[in-house]
């Protein structure tokens, strides 16, 4: 191996690197735990763990500089370090099978965390008693939905993620006969009837209800119990010219209708939706309390899962007993509306099995490793006991 590659290998297989990375990891977790007070759990995830580097502004300037390795960098290096050290130090063989299993389990655990970070999606769906829904809504992300509602049986929806609007990118989608051009975007805002907001600047909206509403930008919140409610002004531009500008925000609560090209359209900004391959009907939500107290004992939702082919089955979802279906996991999360509405958390994580497999492998590996040692120790003791007396000290 050439000198340079040899140096790199020595760096990556070094046990000192392992210790340094673990120390950095401890600092990162401690720092992130403290930062959760200001940033909230999602903010900490994004800034500390789902990042290559952690940036901070130089005091007095807006210049952002990296100051610490992020979770992906530390985890990535740890992974490379572990695999490299493994390949360069250990040889295949029964005697090392326990170590192999344990380390492979650890590698899987690290990979599983990486894949969860990349792939996991969290949604909520709230159902009133008797209500049927075929979608869940994101806890954090929003989208602009432009719907061709002409057909009486179905809606054709073009969903534009909020991040596209935030990036001020015009959207020309083959399903839309017009371009969607963001004119204004606030990541968090409050809406007020214009009449109640004396001195509000003129509205950029020329169509729909936006012209009667004034928008006040608010500071972005990262508190766990709060949610940013964005607002945006979108101009729709058809080949023959502008159709007007609409104000959209999840706070408006309903889509705005317009007609263009002989078709019925709806435009709205809403919580990002994930449509399910089936629909759910809430049959009964139960909130049991310990008798004579207000202390909750159990929350459960009896739902019917209605498949596309018309068949259905009943499922009881309760704490620590989620429903798994079509790659989605439905957890009992919360309730509202005086116990009439249930809130289910819907999680999609294709790598959800990896931690289970990893932990099983690690446990087996450790049992094997220590079992081998125990067996060898036992053999040595028996050997020592059988040895002739003169051979003893």
């Amino acid at each position, binding site marked *: 191996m050439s000198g340079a590659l040899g140096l*790199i290998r020595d760096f990556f297989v070094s046990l000192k690197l392992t210790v340094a990375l673990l120390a950095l990891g401890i600092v990162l977790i401690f720092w992130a735990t403290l930062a959760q007070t200001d940033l909230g759990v999602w903010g900490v995830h994004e800034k500390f763990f789902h990042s290559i580097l952690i940036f901070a502004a130089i005091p007095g300037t807006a210049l952002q500089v990296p100051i610490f390795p992020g979770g992906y960098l530390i985890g990535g290096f740890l992974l490379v370090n572990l695999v490299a050290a493994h390949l360069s130090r250990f040889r295949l063989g029964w005697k090392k099978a326990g170590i192999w299993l344990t380390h492979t389990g650890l590698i899987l655990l690290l990979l599983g965390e990486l894949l969860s970070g990349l792939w996991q999606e969290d949604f909520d769906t709230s159902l009133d008693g008797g209500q049927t829904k075929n979608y869940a809504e994101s806890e954090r992300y929003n989208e602009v939905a432009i719907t061709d509602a002409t057909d009486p049986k179905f809606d054709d929806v073009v969903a534009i993620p909020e991040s596209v609007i935030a990036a001020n990118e015009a959207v020309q989608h083959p399903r839309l006969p017009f371009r969607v051009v963001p004119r204004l975007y606030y990541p968090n805002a409050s809406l007020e009837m214009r009449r109640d907001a004396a001195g509000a600047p003129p509205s950029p909206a020329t169509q729909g209800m936006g012209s009667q509403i004034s928008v006040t930008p608010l500071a972005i919140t990262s508190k766990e119990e709060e949610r940013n409610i964005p607002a945006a002004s979108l101009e729709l531009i058809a080949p023959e010219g502008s159709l007007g500008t609409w104000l959209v925000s999840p706070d408006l609560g309903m889509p705005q209708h317009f007609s263009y090209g002989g078709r019925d359209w709806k435009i709205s900004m809403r919580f990002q939706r994930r449509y399910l391959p089936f629909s759910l009907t809430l049959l009964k939500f139960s909130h049991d309390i310990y008798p004579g107290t207000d202390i909750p004992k159990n929350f459960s939702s009896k739902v019917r899962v209605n498949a596309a082919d018309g068949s259905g089955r009943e499922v009881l979802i309760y704490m620590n007993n989620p429903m798994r279906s079509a790659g989605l996991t439905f957890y009992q999360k919360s309730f509202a509306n005086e116990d009439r509405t249930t809130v289910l958390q819907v999680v999609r994580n294709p790598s959800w099995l990896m931690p289970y497999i990893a932990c099983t492998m690690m446990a087996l590996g450790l049992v094997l490793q220590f079992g081998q040692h125990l067996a060898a120790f036992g053999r040595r003791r028996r050997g020592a006991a059988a040895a002739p007396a003169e051979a003893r000290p």
Partner: protein
Amino acid sequence: MDSFRKVVTFGSLALILAGCRESKVSFYRVPKEQDPTLAASAPDNSAQAGPAAGGSMSDTAVPTAAGPSLTWSAPATWTAKPATAMRKGSYAVPGAGGEAGDLSITAFPGAVGGLIANVNRWRGQVQLPPLADADLAAAVTTVPENGLQVTVVDFSAPGGAKRILGAIVPFGDSCWFFKLTGSSALITSAKPGFLDFLKTIKASGQAAAEPSSAAPAPAGGAAMADTAVPTSSGAGLAWTAPSGWTAKPASAMRKGSYALAGAGGDAGDLSITAFPGDVGGLLANVNRWRGQVQLPPLGDAELAGAVTSPSQGGLQLTLVDAASPDGSKRILGAIVPLGDSTWFFKLTGTDALVASSKPAFVAFLRTVRPAGP
């Protein structure tokens, strides 16, 4: 060392992948949906909602009080905010300089620790030391209003940055909290309005017992939404919906919202909205609805022939009935100017549904009357 190169390549790939969460515009077809109501789209804890009465209570799922509720009439200058799972009512109370106070109305089962605990919780929120039992009577004012015992407190943080003007109202098996939070200056200016507002609080049974003299209600009529919603102009309308209609939660935009069941399982949507001014005038409003069912706009001269304009109880209604050429969508609506705002009662559904619901809708319109005594 081949295996080492593979490791480095794999590790780098994993790191690169980490930066690849991309957002794309997507397209999909879904079964027809009714326009959502706010209940489906508003978070229980929107960023705009301040802490509910009881501070830390808002962080945990606690049961709010069920059973009979209180009603009230908010002054026209207050802006209703969407109610949440925790809040029975929520208003922005304007002050000078664009500042707005936050009025939360919450209710919890039981006595919530008793009066002294509730008063001291609010005191803690404005950095005041807790009161002893003996000092409680001097720190609060208890007045009877409409048969309710309303305990009013007014605490200001040292320095006046935050002040809480609140009322605690035991009612039935639960305890109701009316809590106005803002700066000291704002509370000073809002206090007379808040005290007047407290006088309007009464048990919902009282409101329901009031005779609706304006119009005969359809048999089995359900009382109107239990919160009196101020319109943008100050005056409001009240109505009595038939019991067969399902009330949906009102939203920031909707004063009232109902689902009407049709024969084949399809549902119509009745929205009741109000906007300041004439919203472009009668012709523009009629043509907007016509546009929504693919009908060409009317000219000024054709307007009178396309609508009917009955008057009742001092209100001038304009009835619009427009269906799309293929019968898939029909709008039956009434436009009602009231003071300097305009109210819209709009029933949307299939042609068949609207046709079958029309008699009930027309009877319902006869119950529409100006709100208040």
